[in-house]
């Protein structure tokens, strides 16, 4: 199968008994867990259709667009007849296509994979491998909530936008299918009911509002308003008109800030269950995410300048598959706002066995100031037996945490100025997402050691990492007790939170290293 031009097939864990999927003839097509399969074979009879309101929900946007543009046209030309003809035609055509598309879309389990067949003229058959499932989201847009339907999204690594959305399903169907997907993905009986959950964190509304008010975009909006008010009050004539026109961008900035932080994260709760972390949020459109254990590839703690007053941080995570979708900034949020203390206690649960707050950090030597005059004293890194941590930023502080087991590759880089100063940077690569762990400006020899040590730690950590089928022990079919927190959490390393963002790290100028 390997021609000269062909990618060598090297998907880890891809091999499975041939009897499982007899028609398979192209292993490289589903290298990321999704596969298009010869559409020749017929859709099995037990496959189901999506909810019947699907064509209506999908069609209304087109109809609205047609009405807006057609209406505008009719008003401009003063001739409503064309409008009266076009709109029904668009409506009939749109819903006709919508209906056909709905009729020919069916989904169900074929063997152990979820299979979705779709397409009216060009048939498409897609398989989602359960052991490769990275996350399952149920999204309920406002219109869907009114009609009692929701969209189920399965995220797999390397998938782009809309890899496998099942839109729309009735709410019951979506919840049931999610439970089945997670059970199959975990490697336990498919009819296992949804696991119980325990709430870990809830974002109170007053704090969410506070965090919105303290955001840069909101402050910018307010500043624009104040400036305009001053101009309008003191100026005259044209200046006032010019000032008034500035209202609109100001309004947008404030609106965006409000919506971004407040609307999307309204009622944010984070819960923990044996099949992973569950996140629920949203004011108008609601989203309920499930990220199974071992799917978090990296964590980013960030603190905008003004949040420091309240000691708030936000926590974003890398989950393979989330990065491909345009709503990535929205889906990658683990905590929209929390105190540092709360964030760390959540991190202890998200990264079992790791305690990012107690990792001793080491700063860069003073000569790094040539390359980073302001922030050099904030640059620091640390590693323990579970995670590697990189700290950066004076005004906008950040702390990147990557579990050793999730390290994809390690890179050492050195530019011309760095070479002069005998410094080098080490990048720890993770799957695409908000985490960008670069350990900057270390002394040359130390950087080289970090590189080697990280490669070694990553190798060792992978052996004991959570298996893809997380309820199945790596060696056999034993179920592992997953609910219990690892010992490191249970025996509580005290709730004191030492090094963190503050300056308690050792000022080791690691030239010796």
């Amino acid at each position, binding site marked *: 199968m390997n021609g000269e031009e062909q990618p060598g097939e090297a998907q*880890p864990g891809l091999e499975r008994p041939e009897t499982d999927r007899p028609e398979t003839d192209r292993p490289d097509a589903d*290298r990321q867990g999704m596969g298009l399969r010869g559409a020749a074979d017929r859709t099995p009879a037990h496959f189901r259709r999506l909810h019947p309101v699907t064509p209506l929900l999908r069609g209304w946007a087109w109809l609205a667009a047609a009405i807006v543009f057609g209406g505008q046209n009719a008003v401009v030309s003063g001739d409503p007849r064309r409008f009266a003809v076009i709109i029904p035609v668009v409506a009939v055509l749109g819903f006709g296509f919508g209906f056909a598309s709905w009729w020919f879309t069916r989904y169900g389990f074929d063997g152990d994979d979820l299979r979705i067949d779709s397409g009216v003229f060009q048939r498409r058959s897609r398989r989602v491998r359960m052991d490769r499932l990275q996350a399952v989201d149920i999204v309920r847009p406002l219109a869907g909530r009114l009609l009692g339907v929701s969209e189920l999204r399965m995220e797999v690594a390397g998938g782009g936008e809309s890899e496998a959305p099942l839109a729309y399903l009735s709410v019951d169907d979506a919840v049931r299918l999610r439970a089945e997907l997670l059970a199959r993905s975990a490697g336990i009986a498919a009819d296992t009911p949804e696991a119980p959950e325990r709430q870990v964190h809830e974002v109170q509304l007053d704090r969410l509002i506070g965090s919105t008010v303290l955001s840069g975009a909101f402050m910018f909006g307010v500043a624009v308003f104040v400036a305009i008010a001053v101009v309008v009050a003191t100026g005259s004539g044209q200046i006032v008109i010019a000032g008034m026109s500035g209202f609109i961008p100001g309004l947008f900035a404030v609106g965006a800030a409000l919506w971004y932080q407040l609307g999307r994260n309204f009622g944010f709760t984070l819960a923990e269950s044996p099949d992973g972390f569950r996140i629920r949020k949203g004011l108008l459109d609601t989203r309920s995410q499930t990220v199974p254990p071992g799917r978090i590839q990296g964590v980013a703690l960030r603190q905008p300048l003004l949040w420091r007053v309240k000691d708030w941080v936000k926590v974003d995570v890398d989950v393979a598959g989330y990065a491909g979708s345009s709503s990535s900034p929205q889906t990658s949020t683990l905590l929209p706002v929390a105190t540092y203390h709360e964030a760390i206690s959540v991190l202890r649960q998200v990264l079992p066995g790791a305690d990012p707050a107690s990792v001793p950090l080491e700063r860069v030597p003073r000569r790094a100031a040539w390359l980073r005059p302001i922030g050099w004293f904030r640059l620091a890194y640390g590693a323990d037996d579970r995670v590697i941590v990189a700290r950066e930023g004076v005004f906008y502080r950040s702390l990147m945490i990557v579990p050793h087991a999730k*390290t994809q590759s390690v890179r050492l*880089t050195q530019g011309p100025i760095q070479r002069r100063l005998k410094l080098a940077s080490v990048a720890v690569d993770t799957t695409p997402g908000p985490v960008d762990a670069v350990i900057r400006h270390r002394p040359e020899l130390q950087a080289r050691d970090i590189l080697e040590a990280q490669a070694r730690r990553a*190798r060792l950590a992978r052996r004991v990492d959570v298996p893809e089928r997380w309820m199945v022990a790596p060696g056999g079919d034993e179920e592992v007790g997953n609910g219990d927190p690892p010992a490191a959490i249970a025996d509580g390393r005290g709730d004191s939170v030492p090094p963190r963002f503050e300056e308690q790290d050792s000022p080791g100028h690691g030239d010796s290293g």
Partner: protein
Amino acid sequence: MFAPPGEAWQPVSKALVTLRRAVLLFWVAVFGLAALVAGLLLVWWLAAVGLAVALVVLIWGLWLIPRNWRAWGYAERDDDLLVKHGVLFRKLSVVPYGRMQFVDVNSGPLERRVGIATVQLHTASPATDARIPGLPPDEAARLRDRLAALGEARAAGL
């Protein structure tokens, strides 16, 4: 620091230098001709300046290409692949075999002509920088197969 002794560093094919020199010569020639034409049609000093620039680029390129070639290297260790390259901006990547998602072997028309191919290793991170240009086709095929086999043997999930 970027090429610590003790690793079995492998150089890439010298044909890469030939290829890059040929490409450089081609573009310098195109630029020089354009300058010449511009000088004949417009003002004479345009040609002088253009040719001077072309000459500088040519000399600089001819000096840089072998240096850049020498900087390329890769080493197959037990558990990971090392790739180093770059003169001004030096880079060294460590890619564990178990993290590999797939391997690409590419060979364009010019590369085929001088008998080289490019092997690129992909992990789940787009930032992974593990591209090895200038491998003889046999070596490229061997490396690809070896990486694929090792990737499978040391397979790990995401």
